[in-house]
């Protein structure tokens, strides 16, 4: 039976995603700063990429030249990202407890010069996709077969630089580029559709020359299934719109704009641990 279809494996991936969730919330509680809503919406995507056998990366050689590149364009979701990197083995898990501490390598937003496994310094939105397009062009120039995966927010796509980069990706037919949109429908201030309409989002990507697939962004099996079949169409860049719920997995935070950067209390953490069915061991 292929691994993706193995129910035991799918259950393990789900548990790992939930561990990423609780780890990120615990980090946010520690720092009294963070982005709970997006950490929770992106956890299954990150778990699938790093622990579901999608990304060809080697934690022992973080700068292995032939590695796949993963760029977290929504750099504010560093809590979930760092937890995924630690779980994959890029650095010891106990480092997570230094999140945002003075001189920690776990800055509020990722710094590639501090932390193994980070490819790009992100935080201001609309930077990850142009960088990813450059990396994909670079792979082609070097005749390499590695791929570039970039995770963007949905509100983030209001930054025009994304669409500049999308045009380049189409023009150069970058089939080694995969954009994953964490479509949780909430940005910092409010719901995306109330703030600045993003729909028809899939059609927009199609109009920019991408092969677009939509999936339940919390179904690790579906995500694996899609992401293990890139490019979605020969000669085109791929876009996976992962339909997610902001704050997913923790009922009090789900679909609440206030939890974009809400900071959980110890009571919240206990409730979250119980709902998620995991313990944080660092």
């Amino acid at each position, binding site marked *: 039976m292929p691994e993706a279809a193995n129910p035991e494996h799918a259950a393990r991936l789900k548990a790992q995603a939930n561990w990423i969730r609780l780890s990120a919330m615990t980090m946010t509680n520690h720092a009294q700063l963070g982005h709970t809503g997006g950490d929770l919406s992106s956890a299954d995507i990150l778990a699938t990429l790093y622990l579901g056998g999608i990304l060809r990366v080697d934690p022992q050689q973080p700068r292995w*030249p032939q590695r796949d590149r993963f760029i977290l364009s929504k750099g504010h979701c560093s809590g979930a990202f760092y937890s995924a990197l630690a779980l994959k083995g890029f650095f010891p898990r106990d480092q997570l407890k230094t999140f945002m501490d003075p001189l920690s390598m776990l800055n509020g937003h990722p710094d590639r010069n501090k932390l193994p496994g980070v490819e790009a310094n992100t935080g201001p939105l609309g930077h990850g996709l*142009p960088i990813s397009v*450059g*990396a994909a*062009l670079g792979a082609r120039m*070097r005749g390499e077969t590695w791929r570039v995966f970039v995770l963007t927010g949905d509100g983030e796509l209001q930054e025009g*630089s994304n669409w500049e980069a999308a045009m*380049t990706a189409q023009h150069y037919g970058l089939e080694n580029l995969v954009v994953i949109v964490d479509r949780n429908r909430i940005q910092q201030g409010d719901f995306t559709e109330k703030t600045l309409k993003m729909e028809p989002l899939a059609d927009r990507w199609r109009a920019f020359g991408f092969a677009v697939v939509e999936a339940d962004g919390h179904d690790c099996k579906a995500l694996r299934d899609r992401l293990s079949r890139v490019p979605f169409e020969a000669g085109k860049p791929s876009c996976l719109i992962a339909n997610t719920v902001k704050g997913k997995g923790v009922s009090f935070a789900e679909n609440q704009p206030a939890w974009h950067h809400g900071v959980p209390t110890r009571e919240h953490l206990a409730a979250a641990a119980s709902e998620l069915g995991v313990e944080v061991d660092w």
Partner: protein
Amino acid sequence: MEAVAKAVENTSLHDCRDAYAEALEKMAAGDARVCAVINDSLSSAKLKNFKAKYPGRFVNVGIAEQNMVGVGAGLANAGMVPYLCGAACFMTARAMEQVKVDLAYSRSNVRLCGMSPGMAYGQLGPTHHSIEDVAWTRILPNIGVIVPADAVETRAAMLYSLKHEGPLFLRIARMPLPDVHKSGYEFRYGIADVLRWGRDVTLMACGVMVSRALEAAHMLESAGVDARVVNMSTVKPLDRDAVLDAARSTCGIVTAEEGLAAGGLGGAVAEVLAEEHPAPMRILGVRDAFAPTGSAEFLLEHFGLTPGGIRDAALELLEKRR
């Protein structure tokens, strides 16, 4: 410029853009990591030959400077050494956050070749002038700022850039310039290039102002003044020792640059003097203004960025000392 040419090595004028383009082709021939990124105009970037020879290592992102700089960072992540070539005014101002984050903060191995900087676009006006670029790039950590003085130094600085680790901003002049260097000149990053030793006063300049500073020294010589001329082509990291030596051994320093007087070469020199050895100084540049309409040559005159203007500033410093 004829008067200027008399004071320098070679009386004919050369286009720094040709030197940069030739150097880039030469580097690409010897190193498969070298690639070029432009934002629309092949002729502005002077890369027609590069594209013809290395089509696989040439990217045109269209009119999209933010994307251009991000693409550069991504190419560097992939192990390439990208040269981003476009009008300095758009590549810096339009993409400043990308320059800060994707290049400087990230320490990406990217070279920004800012074409036609300063007031080179003359009559096109302040939208197309790039008098702010040196100040903007100089204040960012990690990024080196190089303003070559002539075609010889442009070529040498380009060849140096391939060995450099980290981001660089190279300002490539549009105005044809006389050579102030002999062929075979080797660019030394971060080291001031003394073109003429002198005991009375020091003239420090970069870019198109260097040949003008040499001509000013020539004029001062006729007036019995022995002027030192220093080409500060590396504006960052600034050669502090050269500045302090000039402050200690001459009566003061006149800086001259084709850009804002605030924050550029003059600002960098003033920072060193203020902290370590206060000395009389004059900063020649564009003073808190956007340029009026006029050709590049006219605008340099308008702002006193001429051999005569530099000479007068030097004489004022000498007068102060007396």
